[in-house]
């Protein structure tokens, strides 16, 4: 069932790359044209993704769709192998959905003396890497794209960011490279183990997860290498400190790509690398992840409340929410894992809504400090409305996207780790505090003198925000659309982890 009979996925991945190359040919000065071409390219990718989604029909026997594979470095058994799993489809859809919106809200005037063309090119390259990493079926290819992802974001922060952009970009890159190089050692270890067991070297993710036996101390070290890289990327505390700095200095569109899309690779990697390839070791280390996840949920939420810069605040909110995702993954129950995946999508959408509307505020006020605002709701009700809506999605209001994921994770986690689930539930309360308090301080009250000059959101901008808001409602109301594609994978993971499938609670359906 390889779909279209031609390398459909490679074509998809190439769309942003080709668009980026076209942008480089266009004259640097004509930023409006560059923006139009960039958006067109990303819309083509979006439409194409929709078609791929319609043709997607995974089952327990064929969880990977549209599979293509070409030899790349034969000496090491490395291939250009791409295939779409249900989770991959969701992440690709999220990427393809958010990219045009981010591009549409990207400024066309030069920033820090650098032309806007670069920003569009790097954003498209970030999309290219993201699509590639979500579709890679060769672990080496996955690693390469995982590392390559750092470069576009590095330049986006370093060239187009705020006053301390160079430090933030460097910190981002060093953390990323550190994780990546530790993963490289693990990758080499895995390769050597696979080669000694199979007699030939391979990075094929299906072969690695089915044909080789990884247990014992070497496997633990290899597992930890991968786990560290994913924990830094996710980020899980205590490996999170790069994220607030990056978010504070990065342009908001970059933050959306980084936090909304690319950071998902951390939890994505846990689901497609750690659990399938190291089921035994994953089970051994699950409690450690649960502890880190729960600690992260509470700690990051508390820190978020104390933030004065809204970008930092949102970064900590995201760290707290990544904790929920990790909790769901490592609770190992079907409902928690499904919830974690729903949450990955929901978080991407909610983050996009929050950061992008925050971008509107920053554009008007030149700062993201909570105390520099006040009374925005009176002057700019549209901005306030979108802000509130995205905020409510973030704090998991029932009916919006965040709720489904969060509640599924908590229910699923409760089946195995009652204490952890109860503590994590406190995160829900704290979420209400940081979101609503921020809303009250920024939007409520009487407008300050600087705020009174604010213009409300233009109608054209509303059209850009509308898809995000609609998607937040859709995922909240019809979570089945997100759950259905990943069912075969979840079942497969449950089998390989040796966990009894079909917990009774799923029938009760919390959605």
């Amino acid at each position, binding site marked *: 069932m390889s779909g279209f009979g031609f390398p459909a996925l490679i074509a998809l991945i190439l769309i942003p790359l080709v668009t980026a190359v076209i942008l480089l040919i266009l004259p640097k000065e004509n930023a409006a044209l560059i923006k139009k071409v960039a958006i067109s390219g990303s819309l083509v990718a979006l439409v194409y993704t929709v078609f791929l989604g319609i043709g997607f029909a995974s089952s327990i026997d064929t969880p990977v769709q549209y599979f293509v594979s070409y030899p790349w470095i034969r000496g090491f058994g490395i291939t250009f192998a791409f295939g779409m799993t249900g989770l991959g489809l969701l992440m690709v859809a999220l990427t393809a959905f958010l990219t045009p919106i981010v591009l549409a809200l990207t400024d066309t005037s030069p920033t820090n003396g650098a032309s806007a063309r670069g920003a569009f090119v790097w954003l498209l390259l970030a999309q290219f890497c993201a699509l590639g990493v979500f579709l890679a079926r060769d672990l080496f290819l996955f690693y390469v794209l995982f590392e390559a992802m750092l470069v576009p974001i590095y330049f986006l922060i370093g060239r187009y960011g705020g006053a301390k952009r160079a430090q933030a970009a460097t910190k981002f890159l060093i953390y990323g490279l550190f994780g990546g190089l530790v993963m490289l*050692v693990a990758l080499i270890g895995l390769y*050597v183990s696979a080669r000694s067991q199979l007699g030939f070297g391979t990075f094929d993710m299906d072969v690695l997860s089915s044909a080789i036996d990884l247990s014992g101390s070497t496997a633990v070290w290899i597992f930890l290498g991968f786990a560290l890289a994913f924990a830094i990327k996710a980020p899980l505390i205590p490996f999170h400190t790069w994220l607030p700095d990056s978010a504070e200095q990065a342009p908001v569109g970059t933050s959306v790509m980084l936090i909304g899309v690319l950071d998902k690779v951390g939890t994505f990697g846990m689901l497609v690398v750690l659990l399938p390839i190291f089921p035994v070791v994953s089970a051994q280390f699950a409690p450690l992840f649960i502890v880190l996840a729960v600690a992260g949920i509470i700690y990051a939420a508390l820190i978020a409340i104390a933030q004065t810069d809204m970008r930092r605040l949102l970064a900590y909110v995201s760290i707290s929410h990544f904790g929920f995702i990790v909790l769901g993954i490592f609770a190992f129950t079907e409902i928690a894992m499904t919830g974690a995946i729903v949450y990955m999508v929901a978080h991407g959408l909610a983050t996009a809504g929050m950061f992008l509307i925050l971008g509107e505020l920053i554009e008007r006020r030149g700062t993201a400090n909570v105390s520099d605002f006040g009374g925005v709701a009176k002057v700019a009700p549209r901005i306030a409305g979108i802000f509130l809506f995205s905020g409510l999605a973030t704090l998991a209001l029932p009916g919006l996207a965040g709720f489904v994921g969060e509640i599924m994770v908590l229910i699923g986690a409760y089946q195995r780790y009652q204490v952890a689930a109860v503590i994590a539930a406190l995160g829900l309360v704290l979420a209400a505090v940081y979101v609503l308090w921020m809303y009250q301080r920024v939007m409520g009250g009487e407008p300050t003198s600087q705020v009174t000059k604010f213009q409300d959101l233009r109608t054209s901008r509303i059209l850009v925000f509308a898809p995000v808001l609609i998607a937040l409602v859709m995922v909240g109301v019809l979570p089945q659309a997100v759950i259905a594609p990943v069912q075969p994978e979840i079942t497969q993971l449950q089998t390989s982890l040796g966990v009894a499938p079909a917990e009774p609670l799923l029938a009760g359906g919390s959605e």
Partner: protein
Amino acid sequence: MMQMPSIDYFALLPVLLIFGFGVVGTLIEAFVAPRYRRVTQIWVSFAALGSALAATIGVAVSGRLGVTAGGTVSIDGPTLFLWGAILVAAFLASLLAAERHVDPSGDAFVGRASTLPGGEEERKVTTLGLLQTEIWPLMLFSITGMMLFVSASNMLMLFVALEVMSLPLYLLVGLARRRRLLSQEASLKYFILGSLASALLLFGIALLFAYSGSLDFAEISISITTQLQTSGLLLVSVVLIAVGMLFKVGAVPFQQWIPDVYQGSPTPITALMAGAVKVAAFGALLRVFYVALGGLRWEWRPIIWLVAILTMVIGSLLALTQNDVKRMLAYSAVANTGFLLVGFAGADQTSVSSMLFYLATYAVATVAAFGLLSLVRGPGGEAAEISAWAGLGRKEPLLAVAFGVLLLTFAGVPFTSGFVAKFAVFTAGAEGGALLLVLIGALASVIAAVFYIRLIVVMFFTEPPREAPVVAIPSAFTAVAIAIGVAASVLLGVIPQPMLELAQQASVFIR
């Protein structure tokens, strides 16, 4: 009557061509009018390198491998591959040496080496535009030595080749046009330390002869494997030989000469040393330790482990503290020596092929990097202080992007040849059981990445200084060398398979 050893002139043709053209070069000095000398010398050198490369390919295609010249020279896979790498790197370095447009007063070399630095005579020579054209035959003689060095299968030949390689270099190092005292100091330092290393090597050879009764690699190997007990004499000789060889590759703790000599030398000679000489030194190291001393690998491996760790860590750490781009590249060369030693310490079948690939790709990239460095100029010649490079990305995007690509190659970022090379040597190390070395190598890579990134930050993310250096427009010579280096770094990162295959086919030593 003395029996003449049989010599396979065809197999030795590449060496004979280089040597023969070198001799022609000395005759040119005697018989060609001064104003035609430079151009004649350049084309003689290019003819030498080109014909030698063609002859090397011819020998490889004919498959006429074997030990010749009375058992002193091995023509085998590694020899031919390394000859190719040396010739290509030397060709690129020669292109840099032929450059005349970058420095307004001539090429990179002093007009008359005999003049006093800063003296009246020196000024006169400069105004007359005299050039020291003897550098060309000197370079050819040094290259002859390099080629014999990697193919020597007899300890005496090894030593002679080492001296043939080094003596012209000692001279060439002292011939810089600018900052002559620094250059002469570098020359003297290199000469003294190099002689010491040669002496230690010779002493080691003598002790090994005392132990085994032979200078021939194959016979030494047999005598080591047949005698059950390892004697102290043997171990001392191995250590002395190791010191002599590790000095040439620039491993810690024998690296002190590298930064001073790299900084003081005329940049084309620095490029020659960082590229071709490094290939030659590692080639000889491989043959001596794998062929002659292969039976002792359990004895020498711990030493190499220690040296590899020290080289990687200290090389990277010291590079961090540098404020001069040329010195930074010198320490980067030290760190890269450490990474190569990881593959070497693996002492596995794949070690040789991975190191061959690494050497070839690194040599080409490093020559291009020094070529780029020579273009950024201040009033006193090259402006190598890192602060002077600020904002180069905005002023000279082409140069900065090219240098950025090379820095990413050295850092081993995916899709560059440096990444594939690093992956290959680390895998070889891991297969040989040196996973700890691989881990330390990965951590050292993070440190190394920091200083490469620092330069990228300076070039792309900072404002140019008030008195920014001028970027010279090079002639086609330098431009071609840089273009080849940058293109190879990207191409061999994306499509490494053919080169890896070649290295794999070439990885078997003939004893």
